[in-house]
């Protein structure tokens, strides 16, 4: 076992545990950022500096986009109902399994630590993905799930090429942007971080905060349609 990679695995898993357990959105985001940054280095041999730089920039940019979406609001995420110790134990168990099954049936070309981390954060991502009505948790779960897949890929396929690292960076930024857009939307409709019409109905219909202006809500479906007041109605572009 490579001690440096093992330590990095612990950092990645700790970040992921924080990301799925913390109720404070900024803490969860910080955990996600730590996990993403650590995952960039979990390869043997290490990628060249340029791809690593791309991954780091992508992770920071993704986190920044989500930070813009959550700033100014006092909402808490729903956090983990099981609590962080349970999440950490589940992640540890998954990491052991991942480490022990390195290569998944054939010798892996990458480090077993990457597979351990991949299994661990894959398990951590499952709950937010399956049960998440909290859009921030769902988004974090989605990013972690894809990161888990990429880590397992690094473990069994070896260090990705520069082009693949670049594509991964683009995907991470895209994920950050998507999570930010959904989080902004959820806050705008007054549902806090919870997606759902009933959740929105329980909240005030207007929210005021930095980054989210006063936004009127409506629950009619067909969100993008112009009012059907008559034939060939004037265009009503959604601004």
């Amino acid at each position, binding site marked *: 076992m490579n001690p440096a990679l093992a330590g990095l695995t612990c950092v990645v898993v700790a970040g992921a545990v924080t990301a799925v357990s913390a109720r404070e959105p900024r803490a969860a985001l910080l955990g996600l950022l730590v996990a993403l940054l650590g995952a960039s280095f979990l390869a043997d041999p290490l990628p060249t500096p340029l791809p690593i730089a791309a991954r780091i920039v992508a992770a920071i940019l993704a986190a920044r986009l989500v930070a813009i979406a959550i700033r100014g609001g006092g909402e808490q995420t729903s956090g983990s109902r099981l609590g962080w110790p349970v999440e950490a134990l589940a992640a540890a168990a998954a990491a052991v399994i991942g480490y022990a099954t390195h290569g998944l049936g054939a010798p892996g070309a990458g480090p077993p630590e990457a597979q351990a981390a991949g299994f661990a954060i894959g398990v951590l991502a499952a709950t937010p993905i399956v049960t*998440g009505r909290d*859009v921030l948790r769902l988004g974090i779960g989605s990013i972690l799930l894809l990161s888990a897949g990429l880590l397992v890929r690094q473990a*069994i*396929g070896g260090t990705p*090429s520069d082009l693949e690292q670049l594509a991964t960076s683009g995907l991470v930024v895209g994920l950050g942007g998507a999570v930010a857009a959904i989080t902004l939307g959820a806050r705008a409709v007054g549902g806090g971080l919870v997606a*759902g019409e009933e959740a929105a109905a329980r909240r005030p219909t207007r929210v005021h905060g930095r980054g989210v202006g006063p936004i009127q809500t409506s629950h009619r479906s067909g*969100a993008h349609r112009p009012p059907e007041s008559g034939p060939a109605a004037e265009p009503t572009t959604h*601004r």
Partner: protein
Amino acid sequence: MTILPFLAVTFGAAAASLLTRRSERLSATIGILGLAGAVVAAAAISADEMLAIGGGELVGSAYLRLFVWLGSLVALLLALLGLLSGSHRHVPGVLLAGIGAAGLALALPDARIAILAATAGGLVGILVTIPLPALASGVVVAARELRALAVAGALAILAAAWIGRPLAELAGEPAVFGLAYLGFAVAVAIRFGAIPFHFWAARLADAAPEVSLPMLMAWGPAAFAVVALAWADQSVAPLLLPLTVERSLVVAVGAVSAVLGAVAAWIQDDLEHVVGYTIIADAGIAILGLAALDPAAWEPARTWVIVFVVARSAFAAWAVAVRLAFGSRRIDELRGWALRAPLLALGLVMIVVASFGVPGLAVWEARTGLIDLTLDGPFAIVVTLGALGPLAVYARLAAIGVGRPSETVARAASQRPTWAAPLPSRPALGRTIAGRGVERAANAVGGGLDLLRTVPAALGVNRALIASLLVLALAGISLALSAGGFGVTAAAGAVPGQVPTPIESEPPGSESEPPATTTPDGSAPASGSPAGSGPAESTRPEPSFQSVPSP
């Protein structure tokens, strides 16, 4: 020319269009110009050029060129339709990014990278799923979309990675390949919203702008499916493993989607839901292509994918034009629509022919070929009838269209071309010849300016007519394609073998030795690259495992 200019145009214009979204006109202008540029750049892609970049390759192919050219053209027409119908202001940017990502995915011979590009392209759609101002329903749908994309992406990444390496010491070979194959196939089914993974896709039709539906539900997933087809054809099919259970499951998903998607489309009252479910039904046939694991399925599967996404794009455009003309998407309110809008009626007829075809046309042969390769006996008959199920939808629309016009249809504006306002007359009142001459010249300039000032208003009052013409253009493209036009069958069936020259390594004109790889049955290699061009054979190492003979 490589695909690089196309990628630069699409991603550059998409970024510019989205960044300038506060200025709606500027954003739309950039988007439209970008799409027009993408059409040109796509047409210039060379089918036999490869660009080595960052340890990977971007490979051109005839299929890639056709896919992105048609995708750009369709996106341009849909974006124009979106401008007429007052769609989401992010639409042009999202269409650009979507088709750019699809092109990138198809150009990457390494499935592990192509999956990342295809997944990232899907994420862009979330920008238009949430309306402005935001609605709770849109947020819920966007959250489901993100979840579906993440799960599908993770499954595909794992599947491609699992067997995308030397496997000489692989334990449990059939199980590993079967699971990887099943994982990738499920990922494709999730991306298409195939039944039973359709919940997010069904709601998507409610939340996303009509003109972006084809990109979100068809073009993006289609690129993902083409990547999967190439991966399965290269990594799984040559092994001739039994994989009976796995293939049966994939066939079941495809067949059920084809049949129940058609039924669901038939019972819907909302045109946009009808469009959504017909896409799901057609996607079922595409999934059958993934289940075949036979080199014979290569050409029909890829033909079907491109033909159905163009046909469904035309149908989505038709639904937008109907709503624009009559102010309603509810079928029961559209009685008599065909009599009131004959151009739309003609467009629907063309779309029907393009969607189903007749024996001998490319679309018909592709559909029947895929069903014959994957199903036998009564199942084949049921799925064939199910695949023709959307005909009932069209028959219903036609029957309603020729009925007595409803109140909604009766009060719709005529589709005859009209001018916004009469042009003022400008008599020449000068007393001398020279004076009248100068006055006439000034009047001509003034009249021209009057004409230009009236154009926006004229476009406004003729929106329904222009939308109908755009639908006809899309329907015409779709019809030509389904008849085998644009060289679709040749492009889809291109067998790898011509090795392109890496731009960095060898000068143009130098000849390379074609790879001598063959599939275990002795036929030509079915595919190496997602784009269907052969370069992958020359750029990816051959698997080190031994093929398992079929029992």
